[in-house]
């Protein structure tokens, strides 16, 4: 924390006292620019020089020791992922930086890319060195054109300074990094969908098994796909050592996390905190300045729009030491394991705060609209189910649904959950499952029994009319 205090930030953009700025150290920093000179003056690429003198195996070990868990959404240990490259591999290894940040409610990677691209590149070069990749890609979403330009420029600067290209800093290590722009699809953030897209195909996620990227990834070669924030963290693990990094945060939930808070709070924004060191209540009331005047907390979606919603007033059972204790929503520490124990997930770090001015059906419909639009359409349950759910919630918000529709809605979600090729199935089913379960009364109140026999399909209506006229 002392480190963060020594740096000056732009007026009005100062980090909160409870933040721990590591990855976001240079975001909103006074006098900071994304150029390489600025980065070098601040001691940039020092960790790269250090890492290039290390044994790649030791770097991977250090990352394993650090306990770093992927910051993209799944929270899988980064070092373990690197270790999945087959030991006897003879094919080229690729590293891909997943900069397709598209989970609604998440906006951390874009700040890193826009303001501190060299931190990402340094983390990537170290990671490539550790995993033996000589070719890496940054897959950036189409909606970040500025980010893509900044990265292109940063890569060019790296070439000029000898941090990229052949024989980097006389280490005999070669690396090229290319920026690849997506074409505007949420599914490209799914690692195998991303790989397909990078290969020039439709981003249909691959089946696992057998297509685990670490073994059969890009062009069927071992491929490591890491999130922007995860890769940035690698630089800091080299700087402080895996053991020291592991001391940040809490056990099994190490390091810092950038939480992106949006919704009904006074000061929405990004907050980098030690994982698990603050609770949901502290985040909302302290870091975000509380709810809007006169409003009460209704619910929080804690990890991007696909995470299951947590309702205010709900009681959660979590383990503390050997004991099981019951806590309320505001007491939940924001870490991977606790949020999972509470039935949701830390996901991508996008915290969406909902106050009592919002209708549950409206929020769910908004989410469903997104997923129905973004479903890639490859496998049946998600392709058909996501639009069906949207059509039902659409009717609920219009007040044209019957109580049966709520039941149907819920069962459609269950029929998607766990039955799809990729995690999108869960991503689109969980909001419905959790919203309906936790706000059932509210949903039912929006329905009317007079719609019990409503049929909106014109063909069915016609057929029904025809049949009744015959009798």
């Amino acid at each position, binding site marked *: 924390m002392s480190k963060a205090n020594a740096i000056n930030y732009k007026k009005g953009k100062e980090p909160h006292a409870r933040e721990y700025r590591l990855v976001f150290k240079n975001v909103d920093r006074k006098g900071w620019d994304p150029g390489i000179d600025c980065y070098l003056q601040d001691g940039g690429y020092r960790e790269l020089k250090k890492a290039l003198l290390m044994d790649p195996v030791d770097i991977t070990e250090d990352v394993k020791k650090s306990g770093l868990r992927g910051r993209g959404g799944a929270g899988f240990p980064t070092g373990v992922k690197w270790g999945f490259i087959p030991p006897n591999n003879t094919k080229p290894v690729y590293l891909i930086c997943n900069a397709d940040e598209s989970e609604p409610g998440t906006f951390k990677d874009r700040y890193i890319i826009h303001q501190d691209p060299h931190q990402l590149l340094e983390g990537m070069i170290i990671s490539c060195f550790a995993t033996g990749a000589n070719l890496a890609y940054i897959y950036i979403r189409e909606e970040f054109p500025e980010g893509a330009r900044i990265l292109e420029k940063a890569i060019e600067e790296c070439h000029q300074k000898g941090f990229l290209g052949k024989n980097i800093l006389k280490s005999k290590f070669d690396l090229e990094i290319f920026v690849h722009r997506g074409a505007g699809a949420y599914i490209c953030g799914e690692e195998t969908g991303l790989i397909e897209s990078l290969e020039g195909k439709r981003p249909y996620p691959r089946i696992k098994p057998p297509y685990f990227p670490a073994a059969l990834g890009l062009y069927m070669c071992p491929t490591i796909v890491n999130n922007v924030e995860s890769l940035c963290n690698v630089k800091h693990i080299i700087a402080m050592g895996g053991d020291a990094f592991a001391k940040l945060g809490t056990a099994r939930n190490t390091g810092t996390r950038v939480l992106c808070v949006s919704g009904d709070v006074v000061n929405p924004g990004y907050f980098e905190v030690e994982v698990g060191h603050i609770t949901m209540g502290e985040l909302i009331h302290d870091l975000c300045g509380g709810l809007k005047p006169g409003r009460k907390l209704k619910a929080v979606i804690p990890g991007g729009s696909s995470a299951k919603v947590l309702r205010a007033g709900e009681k959660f059972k979590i383990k503390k030491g050997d004991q099981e204790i019951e806590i309320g929503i505001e007491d939940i520490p924001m870490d991977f394991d606790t949020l999972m124990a509470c039935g949701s997930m830390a996901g991508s770090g996008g915290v969406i705060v909902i106050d009592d001015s919002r209708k549950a059906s409206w929020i769910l419909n908004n989410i469903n609209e997104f997923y129905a639009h973004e*479903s890639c359409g490859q496998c049946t349950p998600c392709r058909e189910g996501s639009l069906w759910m949207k059509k039902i919630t659409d009717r609920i918000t219009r007040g044209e649904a019957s109580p049966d529709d709520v039941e149907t809605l819920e069962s459609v979600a269950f029929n998607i959950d766990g039955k799809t090729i990729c995690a999108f199935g869960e991503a689109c089913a969980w909001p419905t499952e959790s919203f309906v379960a936790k706000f059932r009364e509210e949903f039912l109140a929006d329905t009317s029994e007079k719609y019990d026999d409503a049929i909106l399909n014109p063909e069915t209506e016609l057929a029904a009319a025809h049949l009744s006229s015959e009798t």
Partner: protein
Amino acid sequence: MSEANDKVNVQIDGEWHQFPKGTRMIEACRLAGKEIPHYCYHPKLSSPGNCRMCLVEMGMPPRPRPGEDPPKPDKDGHLPIQWIPRPAISCANTIAEGMGIRTDSQLTNECRHGVMEFLLINHPLDCPICDQAGECRLQEFSVEFGTGGSRFREKKVKKPKNVDIGPRIRLDDERCIMCSRCIRFCQEVADDDVLGFTDRGSHTVLGVHPGKELSNNYGLNTVDICPVGALTSNDFRFQMRVWFLKETNSICTSCGRGCNIIAGAREDKLYRLTPRDNNEVNSSWMCDYGRLNFHFLTSEARLTDPMILEHRAHRIARWSEAVGRAAEKLKEFDASKIAIIASGRMTNEELFMARRLGETLGIEKIAIVPRSGEADDYLVSADKNPNTRGARLILGKKVDKQLKEIAAGVKKGTITALIALDENLLKCGFEEDTLKKLDLLISSHILANPTASLSHVVFPSTATVAEKRGTMINRTGRLQRLNQAIDPPGQAMDLWEILRDLAQALGGSNGVYLLEDVFKLMAGTIKEFEGLSLGKIGDQGLPLLKPKESIPLLERERERIEKGIIVG
């Protein structure tokens, strides 16, 4: 021991089985008598696992945590199974030692019902006007895993209908369930990557890439593998309800490959030919040319009655009269002046009867008309005769070289009588003027042609496609059966019958009444056929002669099987 190591123990619905390592779960279940419903999976194509219909409950022996005791095997040596709450697709996953599969559990059934409902919500349910009705996987599985009613109250997604995607195929996007079989077929088998999906989610549509069409010679296979009525054949659509079709196993006779087929007919009309699986010949495919090469059966030029040339005009005659006239005329010639032009399109039995006729009369000059064209990299053979190898085996090796000698003999006048069997002589080196010089021309034909009009006696014969029984030997030396799907028109007869009658008229009874009798005689005369009967050949044929060429499509399939991409 090594043998045991190649096998894997799997429990399917409570019973333990052993299957070879690498067997897909879906195939293991099938072998255990448990069919798993599926749409996207096809054993000859890669497995994308996209339809989710084949989801099953699956389990593995529990992995002990550090410090825990390993699980104890039961009295038969099998470890307990820890069932996994998340279902697994059985099409793309292979079995593993100790795996458990439940094909009829609550979870499995929930998955199937769920997927079935999803597939039907945006489907137009237009079965009454859909050609696939009756052989539609969507219909079949909705009987087992569907519900009578629908919970779907919304408007269905509208998509393009009646899309012209090529000269022979039509697409209905609303019926499409996005299984991608057709796309994969075009990419993986036909090397013609013209189909693809556009848009996404529920609005995904199948279509041809801009500026492309599905016109390759194997395109109609996509219609066969389409599990629903999205792709239909322009040739077959709206012609006949499939449940009225009588299906007959036979072989295609458009080239020397001998692709195995199913002939679909009703009331002596052939409606379609579809490929039949045979992994030694055509895998599961056939070319469009062969598939559609049957419409001549109903041509207006079809000969239906025997005819005799009298006073420079043909008149219809009874069989006995025509046979009698032919025999009577033939007796007038010295055997050295007679030649027989047989055909590589004749069955072995017909060729054998031609040989017998030759032997009865002492004729030495017998030829067939060679037909060659272009081969492709898949199934089509350069030999356009379906039974060249049979002809060479039965009539002798020089049979296709003798044609020129006979033509020269006719021209010189050393040959004055010709028997032409199912061949139009004007298309194979004979000229009209020389044929006019012949003292006797007896011919059989399927369709009227200039040779028929020059003939003194004309017999109407049956077509190899669907009209006759018999056997042929394909380019790879495989002996295969043709079966009769429809009765020929009018008084048309198989050539073996025509030749039998002619031989009888010339040399008395020869004890041949049935096709089986011909085969028996053949088996007693030609050593390659020794010990065989029509029944022994079976629906998949038998390897009889050494293969003279390899089948490119099968070779590529074998490679893909070895790589584990396809099941085969």
